[in-house]
């Protein structure tokens, strides 16, 4: 009952005309940006931060939530229409979505993606409403040692679950922490790694790094791979309608994948990519017509779409309740919140219920917007994909520039943006994952602060991290998350 009252309170905020406009604007902009190959939710959110800067925090976060959902849906559209998944989370959608498009059923595939996303999102919001307040109550008992351990776990989980080299993931995370501690140490006033310039005293803004490492690096990568190269084959959209039999056929997969996706999303590091692949493979195994998966089976579109949207909502659980993001995308969201002066965590539910419940309510509204307004607009939005690549690349560059300059009014930051863009390109070329870097950048200084506070309380005794059971177990899980893949590799080698 309490949750229902709170939700009604949230709807009161989210249904304010201005906030509805923000949700719609966010979903719409997110769909467009997410649709552009290479630009996923992280880039979309980073590009939106300067816009939310002057907004009321609840409105800003409502807009961001809309962008997030829209970008995931937009990514699915390019997966289905072009076989060019904008983000890893929609790769599984292309397995059956693109074959459907080639058979002239792109509209149907897009409609299934939208319905599945809607149901997946809605089911997972109900779970979020139930789980988040419970977890918040537990998290109140967390001290600095537990927070430090939790952040270590968040980082190691993101590194270990990435499909790239474990060592390279760890290197990216360490570099991210190194960037985060540049500037004045707030506890002692000591200046670290500022190279004698006043510009670095406040550190490097995370937006500069996020836009550089993701959006600008993507532009450079496209240039290297021949930006104006061969355009992918485009297919007619076709009808968006589903028959009753088709609806019946996808209902089960959507329900199962939604629940699976939510719990995958809650786990740090797992996120929508793993959620969507798990959903897809689970349905492929269960389905009687599993052999037609990969050839245009509608269940092969429904399952990953429901799972990835549910996972997106699930990833809000650690962010809103613990203040610790579990993925690169939620790390950017956390950065946006901090810019707006809000520190998510267990106290947020009490201190800023307007933000907490406003966001949850706006997720419902965002999902409805996605379905009711975005779906009919898809044939028109898809025209964006016909935009010539050279024009697109130059405009993305301008968006990055104005994003950075509008935030800091510093031309030096534009040069930093270029530096991080080149660094992101290098990381991409040599197989370094970017998500651990951005997550570490956000968590680094908070992690150091938690570690130092814990040590101050314990009088410098390092055993404080293992004396407390929660912190000890979190650190053990973190160590296991790194060691298990190594053990697995060694065993595989021994066998072969």
């Amino acid at each position: 009952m309490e949750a229902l009252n709170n939700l009604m309170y949230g709807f009161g905020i989210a249904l304010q005309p201005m906030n509805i406009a923000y949700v719609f604007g966010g979903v719409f902009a997110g769909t467009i940006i997410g649709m552009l190959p290479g630009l996923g939710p992280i880039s979309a959110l980073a590009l939106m931060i300067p816009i939310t800067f002057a907004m009321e925090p609840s409105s800003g976060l409502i807009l961001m939530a809309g962008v997030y959902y829209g970008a995931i849906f937009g990514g699915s559209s390019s997966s289905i229409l072009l076989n060019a998944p904008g983000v890893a989370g929609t790769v599984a959608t292309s397995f059956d979505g693109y074959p459907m498009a080639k058979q002239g059923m792109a509209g149907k595939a897009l409609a299934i993606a939208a319905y599945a996303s809607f149901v997946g999102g809605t089911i997972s919001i109900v779970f979020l409403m139930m789980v988040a307040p419970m977890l918040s109550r537990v998290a109140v008992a967390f001290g600095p040692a537990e927070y430090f351990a939790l952040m270590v776990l968040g980082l190691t989980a993101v590194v270990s679950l990435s499909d790239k080299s474990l060592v390279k993931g760890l290197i990216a995370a360490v570099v991210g922490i190194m960037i985060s501690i540049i500037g004045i140490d707030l506890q002692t006033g000591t200046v670290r790694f500022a190279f004698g310039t006043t510009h670095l005293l406040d550190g490097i803004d995370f937006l500069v790094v996020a836009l550089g490492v993701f959006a600008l690096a993507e532009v450079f990568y496209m240039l290297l791979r021949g930006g104006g190269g061969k355009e992918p084959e485009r297919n007619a959209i076709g009808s968006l309608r589903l028959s009753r039999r088709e609806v019946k056929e996808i209902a089960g997969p959507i329900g199962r994948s939604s629940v699976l996706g939510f719990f995958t999303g809650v786990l740090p590091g797992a996120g929508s990519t793993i959620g969507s692949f798990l959903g897809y493979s689970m349905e492929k195994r269960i389905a009687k017509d599993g052999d037609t998966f990969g050839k245009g089976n509608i269940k092969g579109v429904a399952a990953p779409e429901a799972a990835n949207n549910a996972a997106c909502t699930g990833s809000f659980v650690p962010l809103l309740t613990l203040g610790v993001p579990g993925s690169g995308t939620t790390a950017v969201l956390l950065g946006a919140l901090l810019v707006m002066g809000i520190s998510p965590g267990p106290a947020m539910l009490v201190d800023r219920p307007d933000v907490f419940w406003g966001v949850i309510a706006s997720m419902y509204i965002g999902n409805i917007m996605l379905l009711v307004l975005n779906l009919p607009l898809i044939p028109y939005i898809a025209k964006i994909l016909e935009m010539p690549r050279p024009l697109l690349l130059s405009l993305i560059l301008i968006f990055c520039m104005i994003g950075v300059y509008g935030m800091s009014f510093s031309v030096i930051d534009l040069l930093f943006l270029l530096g991080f863009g080149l660094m992101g390109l290098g990381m991409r070329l040599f197989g370094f994952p970017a998500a651990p870097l951005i997550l570490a950048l956000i968590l680094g200084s908070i992690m150091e602060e938690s570690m130092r506070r814990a040590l101050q309380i314990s009088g410098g005794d390092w055993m404080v991290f293992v004396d407390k059971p929660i912190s000890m177990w979190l650190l053990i899980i973190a160590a296991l998350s790194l060691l298990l893949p190594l053990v697995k590799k060694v065993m595989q080698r021994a066998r072969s």
Partner: protein
Amino acid sequence: MTRLNTNQILALVIALFSVGYLVMAFQIRQFPLPRPIDSDLFPKVLGFTLLGLALLLFLEKPKAQDIPEEPSPEALNQPLLLRPWSRVVITSLAIIAYALLMVPIGFVVASTVLAFGLGWYYGYRRHGVNLATSLGVVLALYLTMTRIMEVYLPTGILPI
């Protein structure tokens, strides 16, 4: 002598960076009052961790995804200024020029020139459409930022 592989070269660069980082970490000023943990400890831990990871990377065999793909022969046969790496270098130079000229000549002019110029350089030949799109997007962004969000952007040579 055996040639170093990609990971080994990267490891050496990272090791060199971590040594430099450690040198700076050891120069961090001590806080006058005794504390259980000072400002220099965390950077030192990070520096040594990175050095250790560089060593592990040196021993790791590179996978296919760790080695950058060679550009296609088609791309390599293009004029020097249009080759893939030249595009990255020229775009970087354009960004530097933009950063230096934005305040004196103004946001609208600098951004329009950058967007139009890069669009043209990347191979878009419908100049009218390019100019209209670049100017339209830049003006829309400028007006949104300055009139709605009340963010100041340099006007430069333009009167408003």
